């Protein structure tokens, strides 16, 4: 099993516990035409449903008596535009106007099981099945119309939800009329014929977000905006450091604040009040003392600590034999690349509202994994998962940070003890503290190339993270990839939670690899584009490289660094080849890097919503500027030092470069996700462009002004030495 798949299944929950069977679903639907379908894991569940309550489908759509189409899916809208692209997909196959599609998402009582919304999985895995389901529904409706109109099926066509006789347009019947008084249940058994690309009307066309109106008017409800009768707001007491142990606690001062209530469940200590700000103020009155373990390392020493204390690595990829590679090489290059911890820092902090009604619990939560939460709560609170309903309203950004649900479990515990609905919205400081960061990591690369600029040796060692994105798309006969994620004593390396952050590991791996490729190109006296093309035979990657270079207007420079500030970086994520070209300007006095222009070329297969893709590319590139230039969590042992936007610097308006999206036309291949690929090359492309602008090579990201100034200074020394 490759590592990416592992990443995905890691968060899967035990669907056996999932409460809803197909029959129960049907009971809740009185009429209409219903198509059940399975995506991914549910389709393999056939035959297991006996005795267990696991449904054999994980999404369904329904055409109601009013002609409206509802699609029920456990996916969540996080800002990635899934609601819009899924509605487009369905509307097109069904031949209904986009406006008549309602997406019902992320509610465990209404929607069948879904493992979670992450990893750009929605478009590639869900999209094709949804198309098929739409096609199936259309076929059922056309069949009904044929009977009703007494016209053979092949003479019928559909437009805007109306089935009509092609030879006699007056003979027609609407979907609403066909669905009236009917209850037809179908299950998608085999893939029906979906439309050919040339027949698509909505898929592939730019479309504005269908939820935009709610957002611009302030009507969109995020979890923190939900209000229920009798609710109170909670603020939780945050320890000073990860690993800290509570020594003493004095909450007596809180009792003097009217309406404030202290609730404790083991390490969870919270203040409740009917106003969130009063709860927060009351919390500051608590006196708590902790034992804080001594710091083993901090944000500066972390890298040496990992390398010095790592246990034996695991070889994840291997080919040829390194000794032969070494012999073939004209020149061997060895370098080390560093990348710190990065926070998700979504503007919406983790939020949840928990409400008990008798034995039933409803939890609204900002989560990417609503179906995982009932079991987490069931485990902690000892109540059956069947009694728990989770609703994920609009989620204010996820990026992999909202799959753990810590805040929702806390809210549920507090509601149980307080016997009142409790809303918990983490403060910004909580958010930084409890976040599962993208891990800090070290990458060491030893490589070699021949006289003709062919890479023949690639020995790649990772410390602290996984190998997503480390799979080579350059042709290297002798290579090895080694991953060390544990200390010699078997413990994990990190002092706090780490996890997925928009294409986990890949940004760091791509930064290291692409920097290294550029270094070799310079040594081989080759243009970086030419050097890459010289070492890539994969056709998709070559096409993307060339198309991006074309748009960017790449021309080989006479010398390196050229002073133009141009960079290239290639990458591959979830089977999407992506190449970034960038132009930067470096202020050599301050060390500040301004990215002026970025061209992002990708091969995404069939594109559902080109507008959505541009948005995701711009978003990915802009967000990527943060990890490339400023974002880095400072810490000392388990103490997180960055607890506000004052010191943890996100990208701002003045950073926004001109971003151009190039898509390779590949309509006949399946649609692929685009939320992650564009971000992976941002670190690498800027590092390479900074070198091209100044001759300074950065081996650590983020490339803060201070680090850039240091690199500029050591460049000067280097020049002095060589002249």
């Amino acid at each position, binding site marked *: 099993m490759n590592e990416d798949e592992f990443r995905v299944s890691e968060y899967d929950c035990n669907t056996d516990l999932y409460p809803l069977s197909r029959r129960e679903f049907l009971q809740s639907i009185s009429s209409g035409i219903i198509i059940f379908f399975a995506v991914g894991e549910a389709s393999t569940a056939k035959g297991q449903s006996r005795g267990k309550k696991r449904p054999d489908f994980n999404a369904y759509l329904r055409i109601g008596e009013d002609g409206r189409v509802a699609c029920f899916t456990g996916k969540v809208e996080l*800002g990635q535009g899934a609601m819009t692209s899924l509605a487009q997909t369905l509307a097109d196959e069904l031949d209904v106007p986009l406006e008549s599609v309602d997406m019902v998402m992320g509610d465990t009582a209404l929607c069948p099981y879904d493992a979670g919304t992450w990893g750009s999985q929605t478009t590639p895995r869900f999209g094709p099945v949804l198309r098929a389901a739409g096609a199936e529904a259309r076929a059922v409706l056309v069949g009904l119309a044929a009977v009703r109109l007494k016209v053979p099926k092949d003479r019928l066509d559909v437009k805007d939800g109306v089935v009509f006789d092609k030879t006699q347009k007056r003979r027609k019947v609407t979907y609403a009329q066909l669905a009236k008084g009917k209850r037809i249940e179908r299950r998608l058994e085999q893939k029906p014929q979906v439309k050919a690309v040339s027949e698509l009307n909505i898929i592939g066309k730019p479309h*504005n977000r269908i939820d935009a109106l709610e957002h*611009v008017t302030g009507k969109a409800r995020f979890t923190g905006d939900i209000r229920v009768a009798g609710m109170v707001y909670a603020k939780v007491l945050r320890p000073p450091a990860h690993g800290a142990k509570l020594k003493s606690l004095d909450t007596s001062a809180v009792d003097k604040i009217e309406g404030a209530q202290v609730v404790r469940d083991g390490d969870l200590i919270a203040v409740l009040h*009917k106003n969130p*700000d009063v709860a927060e103020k009351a919390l500051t009155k608590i006196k708590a003392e902790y034992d804080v373990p001594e710091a083993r390392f901090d944000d500066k020493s972390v890298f040496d600590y990992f390398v010095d204390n790592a246990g034996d690595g695991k070889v994840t990829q291997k080919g040829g034999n390194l000794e032969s590679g070494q012999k073939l090489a004209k020149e061997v290059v060895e370098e080390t690349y560093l990348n710190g911890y990065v926070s998700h820092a979504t503007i919406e902090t983790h939020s949840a509202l928990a409400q008990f009604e008798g034995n039933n619990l409803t939890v609204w939560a900002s989560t990417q994994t609503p179906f995982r939460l009932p079991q987490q709560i069931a485990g902690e609170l000892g109540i059956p998962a069947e009694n728990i309903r989770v609703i994920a309203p609009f989620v*204010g950004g996820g990026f992999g940070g909202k799959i753990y649900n810590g805040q929702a479990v806390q809210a549920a515990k507090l509601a149980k003890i307080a016997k009142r609905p409790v809303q918990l919205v983490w403060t910004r400081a909580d958010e930084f503290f409890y976040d599962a960061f993208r891990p800090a990591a070290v990458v060491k690369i030893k490589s070699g190339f021949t006289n003709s600029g062919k890479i023949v040796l690639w020995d790649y060692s990772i410390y602290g993270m996984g190998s997503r994105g480390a799979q080579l798309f350059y042709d290297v006969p002798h290579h090895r990839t080694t991953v060390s994620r544990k200390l010699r004593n078997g413990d994990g390396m990190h002092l706090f939670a780490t996890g997925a952050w928009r294409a986990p590991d890949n940004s760091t791996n791509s930064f290291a690899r692409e920097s290294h490729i550029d270094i070799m190109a310079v040594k081989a006296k080759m243009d970086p584009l030419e050097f890459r093309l010289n070492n890539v035979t994969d056709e998709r990657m070559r096409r993307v490289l060339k198309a991006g270079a074309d748009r960017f207007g790449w021309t080989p420079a006479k010398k390196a660094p050229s002073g133009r500030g141009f960079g290239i970086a290639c990458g591959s994520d979830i089977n999407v080849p992506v190449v970034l070209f960038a132009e930067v300007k470096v202020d050599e006095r301050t060390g500040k890097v301004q990215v002026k222009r970025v061209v992002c070329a990708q091969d995404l297969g069939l594109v559902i919503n080109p507008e959505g893709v541009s948005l995701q590319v711009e978003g990915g590139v802009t967000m990527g500027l943060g990890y490339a230039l400023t974002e880095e969590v400072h810490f000392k042992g388990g103490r997180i030092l960055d607890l506000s936007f004052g010191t943890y610097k996100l990208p701002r*308006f003045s950073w*926004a470069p001109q971003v151009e999206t190039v898509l390779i036309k590949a309509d006949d291949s399946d649609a692929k996700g685009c939320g992650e690929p564009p971000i992976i090359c941002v670190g690498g492309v800027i590092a390479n462009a900074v070198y091209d602008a100044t001759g300074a090579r950065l081996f650590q990201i983020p490339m803060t002004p201070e680090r850039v100034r240091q690199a500029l200074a050591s460049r000067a020394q280097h020049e002095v030495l060589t002249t």
Partner: protein
Amino acid sequence: MNETISFKLNDKPVSLTTDGERKLLWVLRSDLGLTGTKYGCGKALCGACTVMVNNRAVRSCIVPVRSIKGKNVLTIEGLAKNGKLHPIQEAFVKHDALQCGFCTPGMILNAYSLLLRNPQPTRREIIEGMEYNLCRCGAHIRIIRAIESAAQEMKGAR
């Protein structure tokens, strides 16, 4: 200390009795039920809580509610008039100037304040005016475009 505080909220008079030190953000969100104004940091560092007080954008997370006595407060809920979107709202929709939408109300009101003072801003002036509003999803490029287009639109309307 509790006191009675009266002001105009989205053109309607309101009056409430509460501790005047409390911040406007929480009074709006919990006491008055207007949840379009968002909490992002509580320290005037992100702009998610931006509202207009007497036609100026302020960060409601640090504004004591006492200080708005007798003033005019406009929140995102009050921007569309008679069911018609304000041109800035229209432009945000048309240009897809949002992803998760959480920063959007603050962005729109900050832009509103910007255009009120400078109806025909250059791109540079837009960037400067919006610089301290954070968007994690990276919608910046679209937001700039939306504000430019709204400025154009509003010029036509005058």
